[in-house]
């Protein structure tokens, strides 16, 4: 039987990604760390570790702890800073012909805008993903991602500073994630991605101390998949811009659930730690599913949930 040509492309603002399998920020380093396992140029995009204006040293250890079907991390946004990223990390990704999305973070609206402006000068980036799960230092440390107005302000500032497509990455630690999504859509976001980690905690009952030096950390992995999927479904119904699904995706099966729920693309996070080939396997599995279900385009699958 003749094989169909599958159209796996997906559109994020003006960017067209060759397929919907992306890496989640902070779980794939700057790409090179996975060169032995994944053909970087075959991915929809490599979303790099969150970058700030200045380098950050992050939180003291212990920074990670395993939980039931998940893990908590309190890395504290350690990163090399935007200049060293551009000088030392980006050239490698370019050399590998990887599609690159830069994840950015800041303490203030101004810092986000400055980062977006700096990246706008750089050739060959596909998009910017804005991590708004960071504390707004000027507003007493309330996370940008838990307040619709602050989230909109960041979005607007970033949009004003770059011509690159802007993906706003939503926090799940909110009452109404659809409200947040609409707020950033109205502020000009080209897409939303979700979910970032859920705030969690673990205690060592022997020492009666928190297992993370930072006390609380972000929960990720298969444990959170049902919550992530519900939020993606809610958001996909609420906005017109593309939605990128994230949270506990470890297999093609998982990815398909998000696509069916309405995600145009997905990001693979914690699964990269467990199975460094996860992204490639998921990509292969999505193709096989489309073929088996006689679909020729990813778009037939996206949002195909029958209720």
């Amino acid at each position, binding site marked *: 039987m003749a094989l169909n040509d599958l159209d796996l492309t997906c559109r994020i603002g003006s960017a067209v990604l060759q397929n919907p399998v992306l890496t989640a920020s902070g779980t794939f380093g700057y790409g090179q760390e996975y060169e032995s396992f994944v053909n970087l140029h075959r991915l929809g995009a490599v979303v790099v570790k969150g970058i700030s204006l200045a380098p950050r040293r992050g939180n003291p250890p212990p920074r990670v702890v395993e939980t039931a079907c998940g*893990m908590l991390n309190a890395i504290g946004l350690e990163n090399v800073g935007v200049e060293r990223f551009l000088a030392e990390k980006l050239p490698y990704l370019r050399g590998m012909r990887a599609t690159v999305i830069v994840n950015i973070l800041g303490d203030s609206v101004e810092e986000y805008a400055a980062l977006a402006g700096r990246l706008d000068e750089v050739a060959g980036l596909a998009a910017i993903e804005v991590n708004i799960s960071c504390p707004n230092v000027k507003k007493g440390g309330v996370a940008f991602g838990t307040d619709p107005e602050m989230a909109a302000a960041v979005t607007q500032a970033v949009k004003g500073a770059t011509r690159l497509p802007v993906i706003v990455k939503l926090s799940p630690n909110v009452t109404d994630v659809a409200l947040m999504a609409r707020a950033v859509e109205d502020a000009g976001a080209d897409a939303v991605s979700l979910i970032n980690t859920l705030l969690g905690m673990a205690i060592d009952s022997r020492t009666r101390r928190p297992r993370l030096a930072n006390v609380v950390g972000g929960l990720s*992995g298969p444990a959170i998949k049902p919550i992530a999927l519900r939020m993606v479904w809610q958001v996909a119904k609420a906005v017109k811009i593309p939605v990128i699904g994230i949270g506990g995706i470890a297999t093609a099966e998982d990815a398909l659930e998000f696509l069916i729920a309405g995600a145009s693309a997905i990001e693979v996070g914690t699964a990269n730690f467990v199975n460094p080939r996860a992204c490639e396997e998921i990509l292969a599995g999505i193709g096989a599913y489309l073929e088996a279900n006689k679909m020729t385009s990813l778009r037939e699958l996206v949002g195909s949930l029958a209720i």
Partner: protein
Amino acid sequence: MPPYQLKAQIIRAETLAPDLYRLTFLAPDLAAEAKPGQFVMLRVGEGADPLLRRPFSIHQVTASGWVQVLIKVVGKGTRLLATLALGQTVDVVGPLGNRFSLHTSHHICLVGGGVGIAPLYFLARELQRSNPPAAVVPLLGARTAAELRPLADDFVALGLTPRLATDDGTLGHHGLVIAHLSELMATPAPWIVYCCGPYPMMRAVAKICREQGWACQVSLETMMACGLAACLGCAVPAADLAGPYKHVCKDGPVFGAEEVAWL
């Protein structure tokens, strides 16, 4: 290109002592690349609980492509690994991390505590294989004779004479293995000390070496999510406490004792 990922066939599964196991698996590419001090990440079980891989030092490799790790049961992951049997497979990623740097011109002392002995045996093998240094002195400690003897015997088989210590006095010195270190002070310098074991032991060894002016390399442990320099979970404070953290899976697991903070 290393690191490799494979489902490796288990060639041998040994119980050395209660809660101490030795697992041998077939991984030729990995074995060919592995250097003393490096480690592997083993996947535990089939489901998503436990979720993360677990790090283990490479204990020895053979030209026939066998790789061996020592496993001390401390929790659910190591307990599951201990149940692996001949003919089953284990999903392994490696070799990972840096290596002990060799100084064959020095007198060499290997200080190992418990499963910390694992990478030192690999190092001793390598040292004895090519032009052996003037002196290689292993100082090995463990809780009790049952745990220490099988590990110490392997050093004897290499032609070395390990000095031993056990917490309960059932083999060698009754007490800490560090006691043997002071004996070296009477002998001609320079010594270089390679150390792996519980944190308090490594801290004490690092202190003695600093005082004596001996070079010292330690192999550190931390929680690790990836082992691949991707998660940044394995941070440890550097000697310069205000500077960036070191990452055990990439900058280590082997560090010069002076590179890291001893808190």
